[in-house]
Structures are given as C-alpha cells and as structure tokens.
C-alpha cells in the first residue's frame, strides 16, 4: 500500500535541514546519511549524498529524474559475485 497523500512524502527532517544549510552556504561537499528511507525531493537536486548501504557509503549525485525515489534505491545493499562452478573449463 502506498503512503497517504495527506501526509506528503517522507523526508528526513535533519537531512532536509542539512541540505538547506548547504544551499545557503554554497559548499557542495557530499552529505553523509543513513536515511535510506528518505524521499528525494526537488530541493535535493544537484546535491551529492553519501548513502549508507549497511557497510559503506555510496556517492549519489541527485539529478532531476531521481525526484520521488528513495535515497536507498541508489545504494545497493547486496553484491552479486556470481555462482560457484561457473569457471571456464580448464584441462581435466
């Protein structure tokens, strides 16, 4: 079920404050965040975030098309390294 429209998109309040502060101060260093559930709002465009994936931070530069998605969608939490036994056939 999707979120009630009455509430509006979920945006991490602290993160939003950081973004607005950065907007005022013309500094563009990446903002580290753990808030993967935070929706990308138009104010985030052209800012860089470092989104935690449980282990490391993923650099994400926000472009207009990303608005409406969540930050976590851009920071994969799983790494697929391939299945076992799929090696190239060597000499028997």
């Amino acid at each position, binding site marked *: 079920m999707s979120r009630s429209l009455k509430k509006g998109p979920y945006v991490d309040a602290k993160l939003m404050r950081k973004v607005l502060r950065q907007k005022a101060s013309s500094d563009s260093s990446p903002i580290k965040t753990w808030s993967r559930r935070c929706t990308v709002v138009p104010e985030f465009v052209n800012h860089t975030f470092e989104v935690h994936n449980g282990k490391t931070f993923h650099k994400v530069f926000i*472009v207009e*098309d*990303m608005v409406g*998605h969540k930050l*976590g969608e*851009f920071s994969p939490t799983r790494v697929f390294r391939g299945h076992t*036994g*799929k090696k190239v056939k060597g000499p028997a």
Partner: protein
Amino acid sequence: MPRIAGIDIPNEKRAIVALQYIHGIGPAIAKRIIEATGINPATRARDLTEDETKRIAIEIEQKYTVEGALRRLVTSNVQRLKDIGCYRGMRHRKGLPARGQRTKTNSRTRKGKAKTVAVKRSVKAMR
C-alpha cells in the same frame, strides 16, 4: 478490413474483440470505446461502417496512447530507471524481476528459458 490506429487491421471478430488486437487496448478500454462511440459491440469488424470506423479512430487518437507511441513511452520509462541508477533500473539491466519477486525459483518470463547448471560434486563423491 477496417484500418484503425495506423497499421492495425483487426479481423472478422466482434468489434469489441477486434479492438483488442491493437497494442494498448484491452477488454476495459475496448468496452469504454464502444460505449463512448455508441456502436453495437456485436457488430463484426468487417461490418463496421466507414463512419463508425472513423469515430473509433478519433476516440482512440484523442484519449489513448496505443501502438508505437505506447511502446516508446514504456521504453523511455525503463530507460529513465536505468539512467538514474536506481534499484529497479539495475534489475531491468540484468533482466531480472524488478518488483521484489522471488528469483530462487520461477521468474522464467524475465530470466528466459532455464539453463541447467551442472551439479558440482564434492571431492569425496568423485573418488
């Protein structure tokens, strides 16, 4: 045979069914078109008058995206997901289901025909 929505030539079926041969028109939209144009749904496609065909064509053009335009819209939506590098885009790139379905089994529509993987026997079993 009547030509509706560009190159589509629905066949000798009832109008409401024939319309569904157009990409982007299913049972629901076909019904809506038939009702909006006031055509008897039981009329065979070949028996539609020129005027009726025209009314259907205008109705589709004004209200619905079909065929090439629809295909382009879908591809561009998928391309957008791929370009922004989000999770759903990655799933599209890998040809895996994008909406959280299981992939341990099934998902054959997205993954294609099953490729049998040889069972790797343990060293003990080989002796």
